[in-house]
């Protein structure tokens, strides 16, 4: 039973976000009820309380919590938008911990003047991504900042997942001899965003790989013993290069990769050439890095490849003993080089 407090519905066609939508009064209530609650539609959120009451995990399971802020520009890009991205980002942070993602909290920072129609699109996309991933957005928060003080929409999502017993992937667990796998082509998301943002006008539009990875992770755990999976990561900002350097540093090991084995889509490669970027430094939003015991590597690879999100999975190298924690690469040419952290921001070269 609820009392209808609003005389007129929210104008989702021509309306715009104004400061009232964040002021805690009727307008904010209206936005939450007519947009967020309707789109995310679940009983926890529907109660309208300050928090969500959630059931305890099954015996033996532990809880995993992760949070992620999203500030992407442009808000809509080929292959996704900030809404679906904000769901995938946190779902993936949970998934690479080995957890089954269950619940999300969403915080919105909206800029005054932002079209409600665009917000509705973003919210619908979030709801769709959450439904597809089997997670529920059970609580949230909305703030509005003055025009010029935001970039349309910022979304922070916080997630909780359940970690089944026996799973314990962690960045410090890579051991010399382990195999390094990736679930598909690298650099798609970052290049899709860059191509849109800089209006580079590539003939073949590059599409973001934004996707929820927990299904892929479950497939992997079904195929190989849990203890064989040492590290899982999603190589987002900083790309594969930064992710592998992070792991190498955490584990106190080195890595040797084979450039010929690393999958990169031809159009992403071409765009990178044009801008003088290295696809290994470019962001991904739907790719998984797996470091596993070498005897399980082939089974893991086969499991990844059998999943739609891992069709182009590849074994790209192995973990080595190296006190300096260097990630190295055997180049297509047959030489060697390091693959280093991204320095500062990813900036294209001059000529």
């Amino acid at each position: 039973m609820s009392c209808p407090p609003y005389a007129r519905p929210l104008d989702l066609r021509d309306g715009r976000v104004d400061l009232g939508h964040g002021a805690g009064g009727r307008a904010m209530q209206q936005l939450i009820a007519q947009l967020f609650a309707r789109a995310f539609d679940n009983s926890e959120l529907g109660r309208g309380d300050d928090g969500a009451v959630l059931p305890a995990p099954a015996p033996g399971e532990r809880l995993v919590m992760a949070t992620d802020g999203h500030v992407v520009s442009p808000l809509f890009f080929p292959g996704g938008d900030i809404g679906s991205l904000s769901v995938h980002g946190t779902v993936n942070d949970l998934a690479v911990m080995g957890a089954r993602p269950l619940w999300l909290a969403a915080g919105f920072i909206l800029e005054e003047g932002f079209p409600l129609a665009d917000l509705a699109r973003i919210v619908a996309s979030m709801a769709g991504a959450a439904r597809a991933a089997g997670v529920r957005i059970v609580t949230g928060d909305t703030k509005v900042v003055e025009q010029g003080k935001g970039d349309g929409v910022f979304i922070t999502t916080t997630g909780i997942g359940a970690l089944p017993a026996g799973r314990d992937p962690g960045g410090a667990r890579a051991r010399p001899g382990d195999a390094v796998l990736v679930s598909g082509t690298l650099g798609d998301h970052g290049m899709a965003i860059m191509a849109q943002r800089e209006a580079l006008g590539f003939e073949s539009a590059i599409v973001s790989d934004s996707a929820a990875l927990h299904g892929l992770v479950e497939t992997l755990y079904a195929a190989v013993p849990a203890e064989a999976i040492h590290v899982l990561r999603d190589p987002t900002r900083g790309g594969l290069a930064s992710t592998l350097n992070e792991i190498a540093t955490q584990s106190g090991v080195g890595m040797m990769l084979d450039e010929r084995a690393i999958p990169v889509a031809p159009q992403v490669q071409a765009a990178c050439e044009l801008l003088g970027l290295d696809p290994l430094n470019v962001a991904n939003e739907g790719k998984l890095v797996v470091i596993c015991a070498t005897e399980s590597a082939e089974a893991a690879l086969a499991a990844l490849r059998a999943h739609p999100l891992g069709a182009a999975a590849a074994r790209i190298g192995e973990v080595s003993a190296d006190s300096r924690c260097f990630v190295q690469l055997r180049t297509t040419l047959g030489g060697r080089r390091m693959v280093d952290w991204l320095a500062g921001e990813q900036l294209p070269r001059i000529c």
Partner: protein
Amino acid sequence: MKYVDAFRDGALAAGLAQAIAREVEPGRDYAFMEFCGGHTHAISRYGVADLLPRTVRLIHGPGCPVCVLPVGRIDMAIRLALARPEVTLCTYADCLRIPASDGLSLLKARARGADVRMVYSAADALALAERMPEREVVFFAIGFETTTPPTARVIELAAQRGLANFSVICNHVLTPPAIEALLAAPAADSPGRPRLAGILGPAHVSVIIGSAPYAFAATRHHMPVVITGFEPLDVMQAVRMLVRQVNEGRAEVENEYTRAVTPEGNRKAQALIDAVLAPRPQFDWRGLGSLPASALRIRPAFAAWDAEVKFGLEDRPVPDHKSCACAAILCGAKAPTDCKLFGTACTPETPLGACMVSSEGACAAHYNYGRFRDPAGA
């Protein structure tokens, strides 16, 4: 990418490497300078040095426009952007992180409120000026002959369109005078400085100026030159051609990059540059000092689009960081690891010298790609 892959093929590279190994003569030292930062990048990025015999040494030259740009020029741009709120300063990405005086860079000036933006091309800068008639758009132009024609073109277009809110800080430099300076300097015989046996000539620059302007190196300095493309197999092929010239006692300008370079170059582009830009009597180079007729300025006829004139900008020379060895590195006298600051105070995140800024710089290339070769603990 089929076209490009053909120039990175491991089997072809192995074949070429064997051929080079067969041709090098025992007891001879083949020190070749890759003039251009694009080559430095390709060599490190693909690990080309691993495929060459020990006696073939590749030495980084001064051909990275970011590395040779004197700090005073960046300071000038920063001063303008900070002092004039109506100015939007735009430039290529590489320039944004160049360390300037007072711990600043263009990127840091932006954090302090200056309107600094990255553009991909001179044309983008011009378009920005047309989109924002209420702002003064200043394009900080940098580069060798490769990026010069687009700069000349936007100045010409701005003049034709009477675009009053657009101007350029012209920092374009010229390749042949830099090579001349390297070869003629008495320091060529100074300790630590390798005796060059040949030069890998730049590809894109030569597309514009052609191969003829390098003739002086061969005739006056008896220095073999091979103009070569930026693909790793191009570089290896050029090394082989240089090895042959050395073995045969020849000094000629040869062209490995015939798919794009002709002896006379691109006449149209040259005419365009000549119409809009003229040599500066002197220009400071980081590492090489002040060189005559080695850079370009905007001709007086286009003074309205010359930011230096328009805003009365002053070029105040700034000495390099005391311990920075960039100057010695740019002329081959030192390697990055010879610099006390390398990898400690000076890293790609905290560049103290310009060689650490662009991935085409010798220090950044070694730091990002080649550090594993250094002895452990270094």
